[in-house]
């Protein structure tokens, strides 16, 4: 009687023909022989939903809020049809010991076959009692649930890197999941919060292909975190042209020029904001006029102010040229970036016969 992934697709008006085509294409894209397509179709048509325990440590719940904002698939389809969200203290009906009993039951019944989704992180100071679940440190619950899971998803920058409570001086000694769980595959999905559709895509990927996504060296899904926001930013041509916003709400801001001088961290931030964009592809921070604050990067709270670039970059002898084309020194996110900006601009300036813009 279980509603399978196939049922969901059917209910959403997708024909069996399209479904089988989807399976063939997927098999092909995974490098599988054609005979795997029917096997995949069979699996999607029949397999029960994967149990998920979604734990909350020290966090702000922005990851859950992001998750329910997913435009495709909708959170209701994920929860009712793709996974079995058996524990999530933010939305579950049960409380107290009836809630805690679920963790024990899932761990026992689905040993090695459930996903542990972690939002937030454990504090180590005060014996872990800066975050208490059922009278005990959250760390206890985390270790118990992690012991027999298939894999861990570290949602957001808290679970992936530490995020705001781990910013200097980290008074509670909050640490990311991989610092306390060492023997399980961990998929980091950083961001504060992550992009809603990226969150549901990671879950859907696992449910559909029955494997974990390919990860980069830092443990993030390559498909969403392998390029910098700057690489695909629609304002990039203005960066290359040396057209920068110099002050909030100035003429350049109204024209949608580059936010680099306003402290934008897009050049050093690996995320899909400039491609997938946010909330159904509607916008992303730069499109709405504010620089990227780098919220998916490790330690982004302590990488200098959000409106600062590093000052005093003395390399490649570019200072004079940079000034000529209107690069007021104010602080940079990285020396290489300043050089990159300057070189791009210089190139353009040369093409224009050395004149500005």
């Amino acid at each position: 009687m279980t509603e399978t992934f196939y049922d969901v697709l059917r209910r959403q008006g997708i024909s069996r023909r399209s479904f089988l085509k989807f399976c063939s294409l997927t098999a092909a894209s995974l490098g599988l022989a054609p005979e795997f397509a029917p096997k995949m179709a069979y699996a999607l048509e029949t397999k029960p939903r994967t149990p998920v325990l979604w734990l909350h440590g020290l966090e702000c719940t922005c990851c859950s809020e992001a998750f329910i904002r997913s435009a495709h698939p909708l959170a209701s389809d994920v929860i009712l049809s793709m996974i079995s969200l058996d524990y999530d203290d933010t939305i579950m009906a049960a409380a107290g010991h009836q809630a805690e009993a679920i963790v024990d039951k899932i761990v026992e019944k689905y040993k090695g076959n459930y996903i542990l989704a972690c939002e937030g992180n454990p504090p180590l100071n005060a014996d872990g009692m800066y975050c208490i679940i059922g009278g005990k440190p959250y760390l206890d619950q985390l270790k118990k649930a992690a012991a027999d899971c298939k894999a861990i998803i570290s949602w957001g920058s808290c679970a992936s890197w530490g995020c705001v409570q781990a910013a200097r001086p980290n008074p509670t000694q909050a640490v990311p999941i991989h610092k306390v769980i060492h023997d399980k595959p961990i998929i980091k999905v950083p961001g504060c919060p992550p992009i809603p559709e990226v969150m549901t895509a990671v879950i859907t990927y696992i449910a559909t292909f029955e494997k974990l996504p390919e990860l980069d060296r830092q443990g993030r899904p390559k498909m969403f975190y392998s390029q910098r926001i700057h690489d695909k930013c629609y304002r990039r041509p203005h960066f290359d042209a040396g057209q920068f916003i110099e002050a909030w709400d100035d003429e350049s801001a109204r024209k949608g020029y580059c936010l680099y001088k306003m402290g934008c961290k897009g050049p050093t931030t690996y995320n899909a904001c400039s491609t997938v964009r946010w909330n159904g592809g509607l916008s992303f921070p730069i499109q709405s006029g504010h620089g990227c604050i780098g919220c998916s990067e490790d330690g982004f709270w302590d990488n200098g102010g959000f409106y600062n670039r590093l000052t005093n970059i003395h390399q490649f002898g570019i200072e004079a040229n940079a000034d000529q084309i209107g690069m007021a020194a104010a602080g940079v996110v990285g020396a290489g970036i300043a050089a990159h900006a300057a070189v791009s601009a210089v190139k353009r300036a040369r093409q224009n016969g050395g004149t500005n813009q």
Partner: protein
Amino acid sequence: MTIQTPNGFSLDASGKRIVVDPVTRIEGHMRCEVNVDNENIIRNAVSTGTMWRGLEVILKGRDPRDAWAFTQRICGVCTGTHALTSVRAVEDALGIAIPENANSIRNIMQLCLQVHDHLVHFYHLHALDWVNPVNALKADPKATSELQQKVSPNHPKSSPGYFRDVQNRLKRFIESGQLGPFKNGYWDNPAYLLPPEANLMATTHYLEALDFQPTIMRIRTVFGGKDPHPNWLVGGVPCAINVDGVGAVGAINMERLNFVRSVIEQTITFVDNVYIPDLLAVGQFYKGWLYGGGLSGKSVMAYGDIPENANDYSPANLLMPSGVIIDGNLKEVHPVDLRDPEQIQEFVPHSWYKYPDEKKGLHPWDGHTEPNYVLGENAKGTKTNIEQIDENAKYSWIKAPRWKGHAVEVGPLARYVVGFAQGHKEITEQINLVLKTLDVPVDALFSTLGRTAARALECQWSAYKMRYFLDKLVANIKAGDTSTANVERWEPSTWPKEAKGVGFTEAPRGALAHWIRIKDTKIDNYQCVVPTTWNGSPRDNEGNIGAFEAALMNTKMERPEEPVEILRTLHSFDPCLACSTHVMGEDGRELTTVKVR
């Protein structure tokens, strides 16, 4: 033994002790313990905040212009309200006036949060306290269709076939044995009073609301670039307006304004046709269950919010009411002064913090935060395995804020009680309509159900006010003003050597304020006193209990081992624990005074 609290409650801890930990369907982590008497009536209540993150310590020494991003991460559910409060505090400290367009855009974003937060709270955090999705399987879809058409004739999704489809989907889900979020619920508890057809209607709307709610927040994505946690700016808003010239597509343009208008209209339709009718339908079955009043009929407080015109934060210019009511005297509404060191103070004798002198309360500008995790001598268990709290000692990560020594309730009901007492026209009309429809007296407001009703009414009010401020924004642009930011004091070199300020908002959960002190262009001290600090407050040094604790008192439980009633009342406050435990401050030196706006 019975203890009489100064704020009028008789506490008796002699009966059976019940522990609920974790309290679920809230933001953050919380524990609740109660004692029930032989008739299963709650005679003592203890609420414990079970997390602390220490943002206060982290903010020290940072750039004040960055503070909104840090404080926004206090809470991702009421995302943005801390950021708005923060930029207001910094602007207050530095004497920065924002453009009218920025005020309108900020109001739209804040109202959008109110609408979204209230709607999601009702359907996804609170509904399962009243609605039984398992019982919905017994409903006749035809009867549900008739009920739907009766309570909301304009809602298009009302056919028997539609409800049959939803019921079938629900049936497959439940019969799979993988109950997900509904697992281990209290579905055969007699506290659930809705008939099957109403359960099917409300469960259907649980799903409809889940599918609709992402749309609402897209308004904030237009102006703030993403949601949760959109972007803000000291001095205005980051999104420039350009409806005419070159590059208009890179700014707030006609297409974006049209998009926002379209979402606002869809939102108004959903709230009018689904949320409000559901509230009234569910209320009709539960209007005999009027527990949970607690402090609401005694002492409530609101700071006010949604400035009609930019930069004027006086009560007359705020569309949401402000004031304090004490001891149930609705004839007198006291003004609140956030700068007066005698009005708002925080106490810690029952909180896991250390003060030099714990007999005294401290005003936020002079606050002090030093964690001190200890259990009382009568606590059961160990320090890392608490079986029972000792409420006579320190027992919570939440401080106890008081207004002139009074424990007060904040939130939608507090705002609506203050507005009602002041004769606020729109609020009074809304309240009277609900009282008349449900045929209950004014006193029925002071209850768990009243809190839930006020939230729904405020959601509706906020949806319509979004339309109002979008009209205002467009009119202002039409009049030739496209300014969105004031950068005169953007550069720290323009700032005084020392400054202090306060900013406030009405967060979805209640009155919120941030107090900031700036020294040598850096944050010297930053303190937030948030709604759940007020509502979730532990006892103070006089023994007054807080709003959560008060609201649980004297409630009859059907089955003490199944905390349906406890959850129902706690959820009616929409607790936000990550928010509540972020107090900060230190040292208490004299400071220069900054211009009061």
